[in-house]
């Protein structure tokens, strides 16, 4: 009985953490599809970091006389309507997509997490207010909320990331809130309170570490949704503006030339498809591994 309550809380926590995450990842190792998908995601991440350096040409360098060139050895994906190297643009676009995904998910994680902790911890009026706000945001059909927010803020890559991030907040609030509810009544919270910790400290030092794991996993899964939404907005001309090499915007530029020059659409479309596919298989593997009850 000599241990301080905080230490007890931490010990319980670390035992718990090692328990589900590491064991889950070990289980996932047996799932070959998920491992391949994980490697593919890492490869995309690697391309996002070094891609622009590997690009054989400047992604915004135009060469109008050679526009619409079919794939060649020098330009493996061909050239677009301004004669730019599509291969280099797709490579550079990896970074743009990840960047958009990370920022948008980060916004959702931060605000959703804080609102969820506050709602779950305090309950009462505050919880009621936050939950109603979430209900209202959930009343907008998926992508439409992001479109509405961009409509208000105006098109552009920054506003697009804000819109995608804000429109994902409700799900993060719900997840965090329900997790916090289950921790609020547990002994370590009681112990921290008994030792005189203030609400703020209990929320962010004692409860937060417990919800960080599930939130992290969920954020990883939501990353692909955010990347899809940002690409969709860019496709509509509401996100990244020319000449930024963005996959959605590239597909939109190729749309008008689909009849004669389908390669302009094909390569950026394939890139985003493969990235999201890898994320989804990884996500399935993670879910099965972390929650074996759900797997078939």
């Amino acid at each position: 009985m000599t241990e301080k309550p905080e230490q007890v809380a931490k010990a319980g926590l670390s035992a718990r953490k090692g328990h589900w995450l590491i064991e889950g990842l070990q289980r996932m190792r047996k799932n070959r599809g998920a491992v391949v998908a994980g490697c593919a995601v890492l490869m995309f991440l690697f391309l996002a970091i070094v891609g622009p350096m590997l690009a054989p040409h400047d992604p915004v360098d135009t060469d109008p006389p050679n526009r619409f060139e079919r794939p060649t050895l020098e330009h493996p994906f061909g050239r677009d309507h301004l004669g730019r190297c599509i291969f280099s643009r797709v490579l550079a676009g990896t970074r743009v997509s990840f960047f958009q995904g990370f920022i948008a998910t980060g916004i959702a994680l931060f605000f959703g997490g804080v609102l969820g902790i506050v709602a779950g911890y305090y309950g009462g009026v505050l919880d009621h207010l936050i939950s109603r706000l979430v209900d209202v945001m959930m009343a907008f059909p998926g992508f439409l909320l992001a479109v509405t927010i961009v409509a208000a803020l105006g098109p552009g890559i920054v506003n697009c990331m804000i819109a995608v991030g804000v429109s994902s907040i409700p799900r993060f609030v719900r997840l965090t809130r329900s997790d916090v509810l289950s921790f609020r009544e547990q002994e370590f919270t009681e112990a921290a309170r008994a030792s005189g910790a203030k609400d703020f400290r209990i929320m962010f030092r004692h409860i937060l570490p417990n919800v960080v794991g599930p939130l992290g996993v969920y954020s990883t899964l939501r990353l692909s949704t955010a990347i899809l939404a940002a690409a969709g907005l860019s496709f509509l001309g509401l996100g990244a503006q020319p000449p930024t090499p963005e996959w959605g915007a590239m597909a939109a530029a190729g749309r008008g030339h689909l009849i004669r020059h389908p390669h302009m659409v094909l390569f950026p479309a394939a890139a985003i498809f493969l990235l999201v596919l890898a994320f989804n298989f990884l996500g399935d593997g993670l879910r099965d591994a972390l929650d074996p009850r759900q797997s078939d």
Partner: protein
Amino acid sequence: MLMASYIVRRLLQMVPVLILVSVFVFFILHIAPGNPALMIAGPDASIEVIEEIEAELGLDLPLYEQYLRWAGNVVRGDLGRSLRTRIPVTEELLEYMPNTLALAFVSITISSILGIIIGVISAVRQNTPLDTGIVFVAVSGISAPSFVRALLLMWVFAITFEWFPISGRPAGPLFSLPVLHAMALPALALAIGGMASLARLSRSSFLEVLRQDYVRTARAKGLSERVVQYKHALKNAMLPVITILGFRLGAMFGGSVIVETVFAWPGVGRRIIGAIGTRDFPVIQGAVLMLATVYVLVNLLTDISYAYVDPRIRYD
């Protein structure tokens, strides 16, 4: 009696959500930069003219009064006029809405029928190559963004094979043959996402049900596997599928913005994008509000139908 009180309770719960949705739509589009009066008057207008238009639109009133005025009109079915075309927004939307609803209806029909069939086949043949293949295709379907699906379908079936028109909507009543023909590709592009997730859900739900005691009982009675699967298990396996139909429709309204734009389908989603381009805020407000209202209503219907097929829900 119980069912009726459940429906009334759910209808009453809907009212505050819709009011808050309207507040949200109104205020978020009010933070947008740009003066609507200036847009109507044009760049050369004098300050007097602009002020006159501002007064006419009520832009000189405090914000909450502007909202109350707007909301009062909305309740009476008046969503204001387009800043560009000066046509009443309600009139415009009544023209576009049926196209969007028809598209969503056809898509959700395709995706539920095919999705459930595929999911059940996959579950019955669990862990066979057929099942693995279906799961793989389903995940691929979810992974392709709607603009990729739309462009791919257009490229293959409209451009290469020329089986369907590339874009647009021929004149004529909805659900007439030429219109359905033009609707086929956009509907399919929208349906694939829903089909894939419905297939996955039906598969896991069906497998879950097959593990239940009453299925074991049915088997123990000596019923054939066919009867067990299709008479006992299937009905119960479809319960969770109903719950996501409403959600799927929402996803379709979201996706229709992109698919309608790609196929130049004259629906509300495409109108919103056009209106964003011209900063025509009354149109955006009205269209978003209308789609959100339909979505909330559909979710309500989903819940009611769920309570109808699963009586346990009503007692909560």
